[in-house]
């Protein structure tokens, strides 16, 4: 049985189509990344899966239960952990109070273990929490009852890099235990580190679903170079260089900016060794290779327009 199945799921708010006939399946035991720019409709899909909004058309099933049937969905919710994109806790009570309420309703067999990893200040009122602490509290509430399926909306928003890493390790361990994770993100590198498969949503419609390594091969890197000496622009005449922008630093004299550069920026989808071979003979000050921003991935591969 698939953990999540969507079939033609559509949600319209008046003239706005938040979800446009989404059809895909999340298999049991995988980490599935639901990727798209802000406003693409990710949160609407997630909120439909949990029964907060009802679909205009189409169906969805979580853990085999139809999301349109409240009593069936309640059965599924005993085995689902959810983290919303905004903290969403009672601000006048302490973190411990919030956990006690969740424990009373759905159980807390893993509470202590989770609090070792993610340690929000439980004695303080939620009002005084930083964004990161609220997120940690949310992670504990999402997993404290040992769910089979975790549905997480932008789970790492507000977490510092250390906690992000810890959370990534935690999710991998969850997958090892056989749990299914469905999470949304607008951050490609996060999805890259974690996911088995990725679904990309844009303007409410599904653009593609593919294994994460295939997506990354296509998305490319952003490469930034600063050199001590001028490099002829021809040196970068290799396959896979896109959107090359070059300039010459002010303190370097006698260089024709149309044929050489000391600083450049481009997106690269080819073999990284080819670039390094070409640069090897020049003295560099700095070189950075980063994931392409998701916006660029959309622009390059899916005919994106300026609005992404």
């Amino acid at each position: 049985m698939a953990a999540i199945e969507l079939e033609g799921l559509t949600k319209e708010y008046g003239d706005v189509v938040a979800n446009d006939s989404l059809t895909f399946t999340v298999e049991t035991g995988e980490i599935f990344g639901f990727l798209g720019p802000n406003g693409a409709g990710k949160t609407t899909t997630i909120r439909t899966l949990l029964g907060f909004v009802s679909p205009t058309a189409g169906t969805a099933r979580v853990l085999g239960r139809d999301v349109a049937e409240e009593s069936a969905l309640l059965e599924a919710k005993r085995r689902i952990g959810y983290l919303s994109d905004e903290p969403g806790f009672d601000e006048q009570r302490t973190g411990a109070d919030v956990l006690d309420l969740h424990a009373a309703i759905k159980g807390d067999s893993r509470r202590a273990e989770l609090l070792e990893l993610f340690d929000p200040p439980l004695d303080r009122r939620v009002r005084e929490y930083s964004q990161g602490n609220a997120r940690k509290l949310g992670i504990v509430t999402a997993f404290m009852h040992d769910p089979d399926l975790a549905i997480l909306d932008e789970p790492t928003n507000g977490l510092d890099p250390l906690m992000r890493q810890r959370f990534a390790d935690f999710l991998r361990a969850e997958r090892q235990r056989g749990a299914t994770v469905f999470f949304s993100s607008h951050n490609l590198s996060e999805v890259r580190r974690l996911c088995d498969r990725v679904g990309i949503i844009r303007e409410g419609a599904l653009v593609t679903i593919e294994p994460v390594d295939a997506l990354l091969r296509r998305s490319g890197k952003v490469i930034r170079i600063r050199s001590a000496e001028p490099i002829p622009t021809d040196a970068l005449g290799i396959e896979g260089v896109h959107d090359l922008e070059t300039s010459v630093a002010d303190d370097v004299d006698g260089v024709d900016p149309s044929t050489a550069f000391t600083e450049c920026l481009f997106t690269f989808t080819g073999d990284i060794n080819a670039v390094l071979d070409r640069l090897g003979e020049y003295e560099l000050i700095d070189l950075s290779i980063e994931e392409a921003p998701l916006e660029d991935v959309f622009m390059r591969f899916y005919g994106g327009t300026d609005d992404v």
Partner: protein
Amino acid sequence: MFEIARYEGRNRLKGSVYLSIGMALLAAMVVWVYPSFSGAFGGDELLEAYPEEMLQVFRIETMTSLEGFLAFELYTFGWIVLLGLYVAYVAAGTVADDVDRGRMDTLLAMPISRARLVAEKFLAVGVPIVVVNLLTPIVLLVGSRLIDEPLAVADVVAVHLLSIPYLFACAGIGLVCSVVFDRVGVAQRAALGATFALFLVESLLVETDYAELGAIAPMRYYDPNEILLDGTFDPVGVAVLVGMTVALLVASQLLFRRADI
């Protein structure tokens, strides 16, 4: 069961105690001014100077006894209007505030039905409704003896006990507003407006051809004058208030079940 009600009830406890103290102070003040008031005016001649409509709105029957004075100064003004509006306002915040602030998702992601959530949140409004009725009767019974106008224990207890179904019915009006409007400010204003409008409809139309309109107002079924002056009450009125409360709760549950949040 009742996890949400317990949790929300605890949230409401502190405010309810302050409210209870405030209303008890108001009661003490009314008792304290009564002897000088009745000494200055003696009979009901002051009432004759008032226009009939005003006596109707404020349900003033007599001021020649402490009971009549309290029925108007404390119960019509304090309980029927002030507390009626207050609990409607509080109930209007129950669901709408959580939806407005993004807390509802976290609650409903737990295995709890929407109907149960609404019912338990409504139940928690019972905390102020009950707590506000605990302190004032004691203050009145002691105070009335201090000024040598002793009130009947049974009547004072009854007037407070019977205010509970009345206040729940007002809270029911707020609850409906809370599920209809997802902006908490709008829900609260609508609840205050609706409750006050019902009070006016019932009070102003009572002697007119449109008196039946007042039948939908909870205020018709709670009559402190009758309880305090005659020592009787209408059990049908109590049943109507309970029925109204249940109907408003069920309506709220049905509306919320189908709502997009």
